[in-house]
């Protein structure tokens, strides 16, 4: 049997030691009425070679994004991942370790995650970060719950969230007595600040907004955070952490909690998962944080050492009173991000962010030249933006036949935007890629 080391002889001996005559006897507590009579109706087990052939064949039924000239983003970004990121992860003992409950034999994991926390603080400017959550959507939901705990209020204002984040938030609030209100956008795509102001009151726990928002635009947070503050409303920002390599850290603008998805920091596309959720906040909210946190301390000889800390927030100690039910998080991906950030350094991060920015701006500029293309919003975006074309869906299909994925079609999530497309450029796009897109688009539109 694969992965079973006991031989029939071992088993015989062990059963004897146990004092039973068969393995059946060990299952004596299970009422026979609920014992399976036959065996599971699954295929017979395969050899490793057969499994490999079969699943490789499945993988070949997918066409990797890299085979296209793709401008897809919308929450999952095709950045370049240095080979060292995956090589380090794959060859490390992190892969097959459990949560580092036992500090003394887990210093490697613990230090790595401590570094992750540090990097997230570095990028966001916040005081504290947890050890990771699952993804951006659940991180946003946890941030919202956190703001409810902190303020004791009942209402959440939102703006510009990824539609799937919004849906996740709704689910997380399903059983709770909280309500969500969406602040409208102005015609420029940004938060309608007047509407926001009108909605602020002492019922509101937080204003959770995305910047870049789902349409790629960078909000002017500092223009409204004083208002939030004056109403006791927490500012929760969903950030693309890579954008923070060129943009000032949210802490500078008075944000209370930053959350987001970490995929852009050295994660592969992975069909959307696993990446990880990041969550960082002002120090004063530390004890309201969900999820694990690593602390640096010392051992009994006084040498520096790391351990899980502030566990009294967590389910295994606090049970129904815990800050969240989260137990396993996405540590390996978080460590991957720490590796990525270490490898890139300030210079690399700045390059990647600026190259993505330059590419996106160039694409925007080139689209502008094409008759029939509308650009509903301005240029204050990081790496993605919205454009509009008649019969967008069919234009996209025609481009696909030329091996171009134009972007993310907005018509499904936003029926009012049935001709809009969200296009993204990372640093992996070349000028030729963009020129090819433009040329083929012009061809599709004007022959």
């Amino acid at each position, binding site marked *: *049997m694969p*992965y079973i*080391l*006991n031989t029939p002889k*071992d088993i015989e001996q062990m059963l004897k030691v*146990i004092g039973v005559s068969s393995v059946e006897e060990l299952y004596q507590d299970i009422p026979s*009425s*609920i014992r399976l009579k036959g065996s*599971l109706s699954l295929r017979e*087990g*395969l050899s*490793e070679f057969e499994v490999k052939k079969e*699943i*490789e064949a499945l993988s070949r039924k997918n066409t990797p*994004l890299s085979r296209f000239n793709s401008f897809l983003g919308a929450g999952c970004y*095709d950045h370049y991942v*240095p080979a060292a990121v995956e090589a380090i992860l*794959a060859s490390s003992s992190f892969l097959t370790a*459990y949560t580092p409950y*036992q*500090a*003394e034999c887990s*210093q*490697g*994991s613990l230090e*790595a995650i*401590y570094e992750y*926390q540090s990097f997230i603080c570095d990028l966001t400017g916040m005081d504290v970060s947890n050890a990771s959550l699952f993804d951006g959507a*659940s991180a946003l939901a946890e941030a919202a719950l956190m703001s409810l705990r902190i303020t004791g209020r009942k209402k959440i204002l939102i703006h510009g969230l990824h539609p799937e984040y919004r849906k996740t938030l709704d*689910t997380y609030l399903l*059983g709770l007595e909280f309500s969500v209100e969406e602040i409208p956008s102005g015609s420029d795509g940004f938060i309608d600040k007047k509407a926001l102001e009108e909605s602020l009151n002492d019922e509101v726990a937080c204003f959770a907004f995305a910047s870049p928002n789902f349409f790629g635009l*960078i909000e002017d947070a500092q223009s409204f955070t004083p208002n939030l503050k004056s109403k006791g409303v927490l500012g929760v920002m969903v950030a693309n952490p890579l954008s*923070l*390599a060129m943009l000032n850290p949210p802490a500078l603008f008075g944000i209370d909690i930053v959350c987001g998805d970490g995929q852009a920091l050295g994660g592969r*596309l*992975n*069909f*959307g*998962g696993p990446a990880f959720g990041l969550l960082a906040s002002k120090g004063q909210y530390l004890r309201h944080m969900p999820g694990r946190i690593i602390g640096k301390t010392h*051992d*009994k000889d006084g040498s520096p050492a790391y351990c899980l*800390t502030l566990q009294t927030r967590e*389910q295994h100690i*606090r049970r129904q*009173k815990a800050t969240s039910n989260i137990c*396993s998080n*996405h*540590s390996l991906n978080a460590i991957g991000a720490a590796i990525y950030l*270490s*490898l890139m350094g*300030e*210079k690399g991060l*700045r*390059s990647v962010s600026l*190259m993505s920015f330059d590419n996106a701006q160039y694409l925007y500029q080139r689209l502008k030249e094409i008759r029939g293309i509308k650009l509903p919003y301005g240029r*204050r975006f990081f790496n993605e933006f919205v454009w509009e074309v008649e019969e967008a869906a069919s234009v996209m299909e025609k481009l696909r036949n030329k091996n171009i994925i134009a972007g*993310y079609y907005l018509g499904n999530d936003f029926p009012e935007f049935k001709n809009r497309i969200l296009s993204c450029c990372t640093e992996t796009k*070349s*000028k030729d890629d*963009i020129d090819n897109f433009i040329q083929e688009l012009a061809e599709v539109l004007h022959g």
Partner: protein
Amino acid sequence: MAEDKKNTVEKILDKTGYVASSGVPSVNPENIFPGSFLRKKIPITDSGELEVVRHYACLSRNNFSLEANFYPLGSCTMKYNPKINDYLAGLEGFCGIHPYQDQRDIQGALKLLYNLQQALCEITGMKSFSLEPSSGAQGEFTGISIIRKYHQVKGNKKTKIIVPDSAHGTNPATASMCGFNTVTVESDSRGLIDINKLEQLLDDDVAAVMLTNPNTLGLFEKNILEISRLIHSRGGLLYYDGANFNPLLGITKPSLMGFDVVHLNLHKTFSTPHGTGGPGAGALGVVEELTGFLPVPVAAKKDQSFYFDYSLKHSIGRVRSFYGNFSVLVRAYAYILRLGARGLLRAAQNSVINANYLRVKLQSLYEVAYPFICMHEVVLSAQRQKEKGASALDISKRLIDYGIHPPTMYFPLIVKEALMVEPTETESKKTLDDFIRIMAEINNEIDTDISKVKNAPLKAAVKRVDEVAAARFPDLRRKAQSS
């Protein structure tokens, strides 16, 4: 070299870094953004690849892992993580696809999801499965949300969830997150749910009973059918925390036990690696009546092609973005293919044999909390050793010196000085015998040289870590570089 401070690619880019300029004209961000938007400095050091590789190589050596150490961590099912599965998860056709690619370009991924859903249905007896939840706890959240919505749709007013006192912390925490009150039912002297007490607690406000079976003491709840009858008779549902499903693979199914909602920890029962705490996957299955409540999307099949179905009538929505932890799911699928029905059954049986072997071999030295035939794990109590001055914690730390990862300590909460030992089926008798010998040796040390145990570990990367200081003076990040 004088440094130009302008934020443009040309100025910054080392032409031979990981990425190179694409050749598009550079835009000065100052022309786009108000100055206050733009970052001057990122307080992250520039390191070379060798430095980073070496740093992590050293960290990696300061760590126990399943690959280097026996890891009998109770409730965590640290079974072997086959290498072929990592290889398959790393194929470009899997890790290089974007969640929003056209369905035509991701048929392989959809088929894999679909097949995995089907396999998990067969294994558990559930009608349908969602692969969206990211972990066991998120599986619980999904399942209890479904239960909430189900009662809501039915017009039932339900406010409570019952969990046993031996329950894992995520169970009550989940109940709270979903807006329920937790009611705890005590265990009886056999370590099982006290049926009488359960009956007393049951009323029409109870939305569900959450159980893991075998329970966290490693004991099979033999009254499970009675429990099922009781809760269902009150219009409540029965939730299965599948963290302990390993010993029952191919032996019975949650459906047969009367469960309505099931989560499986694919990173336990289905052998995907734990990654120092995740990512895992908490697949969630439900009986037919609840199928419409699953989160969307689920993978579906029509004619010969696969697609994402978003049309579930009562769907609770989403618990995260995209489709779950796909690369974890690939591994779990490969594992199921490899083992097949017979292999899964053998895994279950051997997990039980291994645990009972440890139980019997260790019982003369360490008290077995509930001295009955167990399933995949056995909970010891170091009460006797504690009386001599060595606690479960001390014993755990001493195991580190012997190269063995300690068992889960002080859980379940109802056992004093608990040491919860789960060997899993993938360990050999030889490894178990070594463990038994070492546990005896430690017990002996307690009598002869207790300081070795009290001061353990002596040979680890660090001595015993001061966790109290860590909590009192939180140091949660490197000092910020001046930014």
